[in-house]
């Protein structure tokens, strides 16, 4: 087969599966629906593997598939850019998606919306692939919004639950705020570069570096800074960066498989991918890089804090995802794009693993998600236990595990950066190591070790995922093989995907021309490369560094608080009154947004409608002029009284007046 046909097969195979499962779900039945979508994603994964090899052999591709529209001298195309950055993303997306598809067979087994769910996740895979394979900003935006749509549909999958349909609308709206910035960024590029094609824009970018625009009179700003910040606002929405992070924790209302696929491994990393893809633009604006780094640092640290006090197993992992996305964003700001993508990849494996593991726990617990009701599950769910332990170890950056290589590289890169704000960022990512280790192992100990608390908890639980109605509240049980096999298959790269790849991906020029770094201005990665002496040495030397001991301290603290002195957490909670209240309130963002934005818009809309449309325009102008006509008519009616002497009198007066005038 022609390799170009293969490019087309990658997104089209999942799309075909989605269409078939979506339109003919009743006809083909449950088995048919999962077979056809899994087949589609499997084909996409295998094709991605072939393309990966082809790209490694040096064959990149950049070309159009069809012209979307033309206008004036602008031509907008749908096309593919297949380079090393693309293929990494393609492999991650199709692999995790395949695992999630298989897992879903078990997880959604009893759900009446089975076919619909498979159709959605296959559609998501298509959208995400179109996003990463794009060679232009238009298609990027297409994929960008399409993954947002599927995310919306999936968060609200259980659409009879008020919390789910609140969360999905919120997710869509917050993302739209980000997309608003993103769209303006794209429009600015079109207006100044005259093209939306990556290659043309990137080639022109250095010439545009000196341009300024005055958005406010008398304040010229660098054009590229404005563009990059606007584009990054899009990334803040999609990748849930502060202050547009508010939608991600609520998105946990969706079924767990999509929390793994969409809200951990792939969609939320679209913003990271986008900035890495735009490296030729961001490299030209130190201001925007600083902005990126600071936003990422805030997200990494402060969202981690929130993870420490959550009791819903999925929400703990959700805040962990926010924090880890912050790490990736910080890396982007430090011009360590390759480290960001590297962490994106390892994170996709271990975070998908953690979410799917959490889903397995939830199934084992008969759809109870509160970690306070768990404990001692190790005995009942050995495979889930082991794989989740692996995932947690990878997440906290245990030397040797995949997460260690990517995360430590980010910390080092930030320390080597000299941009404004890098000091704060370095502090934030380092401190977050402790936080990450603490909440990860707090979860781990509470779920898998200690006393079995589920016996007495089952009496009152009612907020399970699907409102479990079977009512068999037996002991927890290990999940079926369709669930555990994906866990194992994800555990393998969670351990292994670090050490063989760090050297080529970060220092070996793996990404080639796909990522551009201005090494003179931003030498962080180059400096790291000079100090890098192989993955083994890196793991070994890490034992003497601060992050490692912070991680150890985090695990130890968690162990002490939740295994040894179990009374302490309650006491700390009481003592830390205000701090706990602030964290419990999630810094008040949700309340503020509900009050100010949602409430404010409704209030303003109501006032405009009542005072503007109803009172002023209709009341005064429209009905008012109708009344005026009526009144004039009523008055003028008296002139036509029908009495001859009235008319005669008027004539006499008239004649008199005329006579006075002329005589």
């Amino acid at each position: 087969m022609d390799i170009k046909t293969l490019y087309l097969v990658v997104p089209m195979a999942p799309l075909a599966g989605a269409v078939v499962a979506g339109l003919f779900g009743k006809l083909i039945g449950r088995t048919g629906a999962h077979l056809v979508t899994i087949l589609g994603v499997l084909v996409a994964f295998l094709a991605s593997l072939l393309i990966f090899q082809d790209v490694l052999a040096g064959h990149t591709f950049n070309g159009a598939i069809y012209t979307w529209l033309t206008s004036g001298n602008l031509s907008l195309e749908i096309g593919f850019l297949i380079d090393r950055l693309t293929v990494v993303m393609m492999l991650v997306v199709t692999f995790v998606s395949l695992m999630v598809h298989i897992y879903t067979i078990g997880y959604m087994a009893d759900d009446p919306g089975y076919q619909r769910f498979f159709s959605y996740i296959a559609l998501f895979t298509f959208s995400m692939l179109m996003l990463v394979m794009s060679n232009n900003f238009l298609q990027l935006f297409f994929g960008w919004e399409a993954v947002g749509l599927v995310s919306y549909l999936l968060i609200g999958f259980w659409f009879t639950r008020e919390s789910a349909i609140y969360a999905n609308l919120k997710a869509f709206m917050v993302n739209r705020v980000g997309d608003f910035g993103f769209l303006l960024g794209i429009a600015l590029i079109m207006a100044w570069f005259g093209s939306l094609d990556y290659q043309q824009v990137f080639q022109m970018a250095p010439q545009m570096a000196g341009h300024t625009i005055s958005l406010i009179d008398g304040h010229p700003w660098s054009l590229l800074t404005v563009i990059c910040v606007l584009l990054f606002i899009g990334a803040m929405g999609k990748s849930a960066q502060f202050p547009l992070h508010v939608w991600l924790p609520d998105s946990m209302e969706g079924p767990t498989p999509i929390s793994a696929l969409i809200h951990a491994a792939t969609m939320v990393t679209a913003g990271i991918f986008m900035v890495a893809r735009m490296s030729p633009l961001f490299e030209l604006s130190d201001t925007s890089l600083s902005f990126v780094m600071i936003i990422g640092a805030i997200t990494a640290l402060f969202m981690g804090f929130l993870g420490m006090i959550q009791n819903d197993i999925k929400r703990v992992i959700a805040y962990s995802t926010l924090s880890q996305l912050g790490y990736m964003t910080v890396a982007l700001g430090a011009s360590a794009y390759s480290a960001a993508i590297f962490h994106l990849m390892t994170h996709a494996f271990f975070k998908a693993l953690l979410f799917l593991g959490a889903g397995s726990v939830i199934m084992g617990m008969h759809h109870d998600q509160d970690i306070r009701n768990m404990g001692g599950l190790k005995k009942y769910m050995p495979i889930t236990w082991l794989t989740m332990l692996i995932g947690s170890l990878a997440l906290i950056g245990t030397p040797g595990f995949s997460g260690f290589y990517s995360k430590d590289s980010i910390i080092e890169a930030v320390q080597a950066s000299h941009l404004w704000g890098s000091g704060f960022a370095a502090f934030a990512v380092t401190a977050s190591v402790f936080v990450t280790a603490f909440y990860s192992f707090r979860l781990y100990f509470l779920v898998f070790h200690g006393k079995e608390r589920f016996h007495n908890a089952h009496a009152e639980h009612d907020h399970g995922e699907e409102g479990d109605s079977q009512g068999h509240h037996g002991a927890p049980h290990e999940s079926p093989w369709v669930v555990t096999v994906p866990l194992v298959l994800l555990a393998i790269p969670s351990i292994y995907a670090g050490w063989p790849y760090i050297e080529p991906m970060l220092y070996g020029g793996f990404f080639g021309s796909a990522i551009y770094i201005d090494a003179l201005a931003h030498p962080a990665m180059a400096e790291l490369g000079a100090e890098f002496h192989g993955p083994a040495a890196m793991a070994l030397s890490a034992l003497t560094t601060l992050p490692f001991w912070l991680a150890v301290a985090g695990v130890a603290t968690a162990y002490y608080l939740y295994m040894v002195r179990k009374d302490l957490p309650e006491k700390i909670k009481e003592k830390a009154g205000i701090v706990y209240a602030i964290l419990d309130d999630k810094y008040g963002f949700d309340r503020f947004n509900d009050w100010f934005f949602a409430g404010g818009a409704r209030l303003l809309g109501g006032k405009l409608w009542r005072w503007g449309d109803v009172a002023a325009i209709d009341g005064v102008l429209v009905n008012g002029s109708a009344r005026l006509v009526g009144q004039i008519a009523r008055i003028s009616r008296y002139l036509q009284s029908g009495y001859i002497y009235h008319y005669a009198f008027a004539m006499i007066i008239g004649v008199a007046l005329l006579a006075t005038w002329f005589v």
Partner: protein
Amino acid sequence: MLEGIGILSLTIWVPIVAGLLVLAAGGDDRNASGQRTLALIGAVLGLLVAIPLWTGFNVSTPAIQFEEALPWVPSFNIWYHLGVDGISMPFILLNSFTTVLVVLAGWKVIQTKVAQYMAAMLIQSGIINGVFAALDGMLFYVCFEAMLIPLYLIIGIWGGPNRIYAAIKFFIYTLLGSLLMLVAMIYLFFVSGGSFEIMVWHKVGLTMMAQLLLFVVFFFAFAVKVPMWPVHTWLPDAHVEAPTGGSVVLAAITLKVGAYGLLRFTLPIVPDAAHELTWLMVGLSLIAVVYIGLVALVQADMKKLIAYSSIAHMGFVTLGFFLFNPLGIEGGLIQMISHGFVAGALFLCIGVMYDRVHSRQIADYGGVANTMPRFAALFMLFAMANSGLPGTSGFVGEFMVVLGAMKVNFWWAATAGLTLIFGAAYTLWMYKRVVYGKVANEHVAGLTDIDGREFLVLASLAIGVLAIGVYPLPITDVMHASVNNLLEHVAHSKLIP
């Protein structure tokens, strides 16, 4: 001059004759099914005769095509002069297509005076085709005014409880707007040396004062139809009271006539005034996007909400036109076509629910997806298209207009871009309250999903929405030559001292 009857004449007269036949053959409502079938045949024929306009269209020229000319009132040099270019042709197709859908949509709902209803729809369709095909000013004017009558009757006879107020408001609002246009046309007749040819008027030199006055007159005629803020308040009332079919035609076609008038009359006849008053038109358009977007958010009546959403979306059209670049004008035109599909579909969706529950209040619904899953899926597609989701037609026009605006002014583009947020907010919030959630009451519990006829209507619109969203090139190709020609024309001053 062409021999015989041309295609454009067919698109006008086939629906009108079909309408008259339905009336004549109709009798009373006992014969309703025969009248419906006859009306459907007429509508489909009307669509079929319009198809050669698309297949036979030469996209490489801005010249008028499918031209027909017969003397009508020779003493005043008034001609029955028809012809289309890349700007008007798509709307004849859109209108003919919509006519088929509204005939189908009224199939069961309209149970009284069936023949009259169907006839009004068909005759209206023919007259509207006349508006888009007319090249003679008087012919345009006659059709422009005549198209009000069927719609006035449709609202006034088959409408809701407050239909008389709405119908009169609609009629007087739009009539007042266009009466002055007649004066303007007579003025143009004299300054052009005795011609009612629109294309001749394009070339007439005018003083600034004359241009400004003409601009104001045309503005009132067309802005009321679009409708632009602040002459928009007739639309929500008309929509709320109109039967579903009336709302669909109103949203899909009638509003487009106003915008079309801006392109056919205002821009080319008074280009200098148009440039001079760009600030006004852009300002009003942006108010439509922001102000109306916020007003739409708080509507409790679904039809009112979509009516306000229509005004906001038409704000993009007028904004695009007054950017004076190809992206803006073509974006505006695509937005018009897309809005025809999307707003039409949304009114049909509301009609589907109204037929079953007899309420348009959002509060009377909740959890419709539980009982009408197929309907919910289609409704979701149209809601997303209304929110401007890429891949649907709703995105194409908005995207082009935002790009076009950015070329002119950052803040115009930014303000217009707010629709990304507002559009999603009012549409999806409504969708959430109506379709998602638990079954809210026994009305919703008793709903039956859409039948084959309803599915056919909505699915054909869905295909259109997706096709335009994924591959808009064929439509922009049709427009290029005419739009570029128009822009070139508008760029040259025709000021005379």
